[in-house]
């Protein structure tokens, strides 16, 4: 028996890979008592309309996020470096997902 009862279950972030999607995409969050319950809640809440073929759940507390205050130092320097985009190459038609 657990000694402590928490008023609210921990928050999880849900990532779903769609049928044609190549990668898991963040679709929302939910509450669950543990990892397995989170996975099942995600199935019930976020894949009811046949969206997904794979689910990841991650405790929200495990995510380290960048702060809006850091936006300029983090992202502004890349704004004027157009040469980092591979736009100076011809991509063959048969290379998918570019």
């Amino acid at each position, binding site marked *: 028996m657990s000694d402590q009862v928490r008023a609210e279950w921990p928050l999880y972030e849900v990532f779903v890979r*769609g049928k044609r*999607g190549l990668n898991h*995409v963040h679709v929302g969050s*939910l509450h669950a008592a543990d990892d397995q319950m989170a996975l*099942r809640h995600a199935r019930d809440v976020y894949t009811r309309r046949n969206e997904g073929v794979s689910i990841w759940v991650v405790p929200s507390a495990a995510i380290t996020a960048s702060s809006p205050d850091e936006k300029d130092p983090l992202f502004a320097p890349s704004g004027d470096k157009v040469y980092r985009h591979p736009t100076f190459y011809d991509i063959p038609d048969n290379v998918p997902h570019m």
Partner: protein
Amino acid sequence: MPDVHTHDAEAHDSAYAGLLVNDTHWAFGTDFEDPLAGVDTTVPSDVDPAVLATYSLMLADDALVLSQRIAEWCSRAPDLEEDIALANIALDLVGQARLLLARAAAADPSIVPALPEDSPVPAEDRLAFFRDDHQFRNVRLVEVPNGDFAECVTRILLFSTWRLALFERIVGSKDAVLSAVAAKGVKELAYHRDFSGRWFVTLAQGTEESRARAVDALRRLWPLWDELLQTHDVESAAAAAGVGVDPGTVAAEVAVVLEQVLAAAGVLRPEVGPLAGVRGRKGRDGTHTEALSLMLAEMQSVARAHPRGQW
């Protein structure tokens, strides 16, 4: 249905891109089509259509009545996630009920209640909304009132464990429709059993309060368990004809599964006897607890007020 999805550029960015495919059937107000449209419903030549119809009705009523009970949880579950999980289970069961009611009606049209000649109400709805309680063939486990969340979870555990074992065998039915319904249902019921088994163990191994509620729920539902494994004449006739399954034949397997869950939960089988029938008649005979007539009164009132209604 036309394939309306064209947003290739966004397809990999949105987990919901799948929503845009063939989405016409999600629209509100769309008429429900005959769930067996295009399916060959010919009764195998050596099978009594009345037996097949009544057997289908039994399987249908189990799902329909439990679906209605679970739907009563809508907006009342402990939290949003569980609310949606229960609604999903109820919808799976109502889906099974629709197919099975339609199958029963196609096998033996004489069981379908008569309505005014110009009534557009389809056979499955007539069976669901225009039969009285004594015409329902469900086991009594599915009709008793909801109780608390522990009782809700425990009832789904008992029901889905039993029905999954049945459906796994009905897949081999000589009737192609029942076989197809069972094949679809097996995946749904496996999830229902997983959901309810996990919750039963969670509650039983949780706090003192949750454990007491789980133990109490099992004790209250246990008298109704025995009925699920008793063989009715229609079930043995359906089994003999190769279209159905004698529930007695799944008893051993179901006991093993249930024992695993109870062992994980640290809960013993309750020492309470089965609920007697009335002069030997039980749910499968159309003899029910009073809870069913009260539930049906609410479930059927709107449809009965509009026998020519189109939904």
